[in-house]
């Protein structure tokens, strides 16, 4: 049984919309509990970076809302997290569960890629599998086979899903990565992705796509995001939003594009992340 980390989390109104806990909060709390637990076991992220030269970069994040939870549901919830390391050392995943009275309400997963930091003050790094010292920090039952932990699959999933869905709206919104959207090294923070794309989608609705109000009147049932390239503090990007309807389900598909290359066009902006909100 993988080692489980658990904390009681008091609830405040800022964690919630009228419908549910914000996806960003569900992710942040989960990672916070997971890293706190690892730290208590002498395998915290700080020592991984400073002693073993290994940091983590998020490649995928997802949140699934399983049962209703609002601010008025309780004064606190239990957040649990455990980790798994892929046997090739290329993926460390945090498995997160937010629950109340033993009932799982929100499930989240954050998949990270180990990177080797250069040792410089910028925390610059290159992708590299977890080295032997880092692997030794994980128990046998925390190691999972490669096939059980694919790195990315959202692009293919979206392509399949939209094939028989009706596109009902689209738009492009500018994006500026501010410092509060970033982590320690001024690289964008994975957990901000749900909030950044939600704001882009909401702008589309306020611009007059009134028939898309379903995205505001219903809770999100699932958020999925995958990261392909980093963005940094001060980058000017774009978010392309496309809304699709299939039966009763509405989904917003977001392509987050990075800075336009010098002397380049908008078409040359790199894809930095893909995100899907499902309502």
């Amino acid at each position, binding site marked *: 049984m993988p080692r489980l980390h658990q904390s009681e989390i008091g609830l405040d109104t800022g964690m919630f919309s009228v419908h549910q806990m914000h996806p960003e909060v569900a992710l942040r709390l989960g990672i916070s509990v997971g890293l706190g637990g690892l730290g208590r076991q002498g395998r915290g992220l700080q020592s991984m970076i400073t002693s073993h030269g290994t*940091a983590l*970069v998020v490649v995928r994040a997802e949140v699934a809302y399983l049962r209703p939870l609002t601010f008025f549901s309780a004064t606190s919830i239990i957040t649990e997290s455990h980790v798994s390391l892929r046997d090739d050392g290329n993926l460390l995943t945090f498995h997160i569960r937010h629950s109340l009275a033993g009932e799982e309400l929100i499930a989240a997963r954050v998949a990270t890629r180990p990177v080797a930091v250069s040792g410089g003050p910028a925390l610059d790094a290159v992708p590299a599998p977890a080295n032997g010292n880092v692997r030794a920090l994980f128990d046998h039952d925390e190691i999972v086979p490669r096939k059980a932990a694919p790195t990315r699959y959202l692009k293919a999933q979206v392509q399949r899903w939209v094939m028989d869905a009706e596109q009902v709206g689209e738009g492009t919104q500018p994006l500026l990565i501010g410092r509060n959207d970033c982590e320690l*090294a*001024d690289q964008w923070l994975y957990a901000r992705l749900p909030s950044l794309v939600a704001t882009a989608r909401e702008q589309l609705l306020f611009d007059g796509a009134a028939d898309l109000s379903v995205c505001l009147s219903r809770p999100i049932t699932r958020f999925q995001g995958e990261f392909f390239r980093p963005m940094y*503090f001060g980058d000017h990007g774009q978010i392309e939003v496309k809304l699709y309807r299939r039966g009763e389900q509405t989904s917003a598909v977001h392509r987050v594009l990075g800075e336009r290359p*010098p002397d380049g066009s908008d078409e040359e902006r790199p894809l930095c992340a893909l995100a899907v909100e499902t309502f």
Partner: protein
Amino acid sequence: MKFRFSGTLLRFVDYRKEIAVEDAATVGSALQSLVSQYPSLRGALFDADSKVRSTHRIVLNGEVLGREHTDRALFEHDRLEILTAIAGG
């Protein structure tokens, strides 16, 4: 010539996205001029052997240069970008 900055190195150059350097004949001399102007950049940009860290890419007018190509000549309207692959924050 001009340097163009983004990413994790931006804080070491006072958050200036473009920095002009005059009278630099080569990429190497432009880099030295830059770190003289922004001393805290030196440790972030260079490793212990005073080579550009392998985590950064030097791009001259869109062409990625190897770390050993710092002797490449520069001209007035050249643009040098320093890109960081990824940060481990």
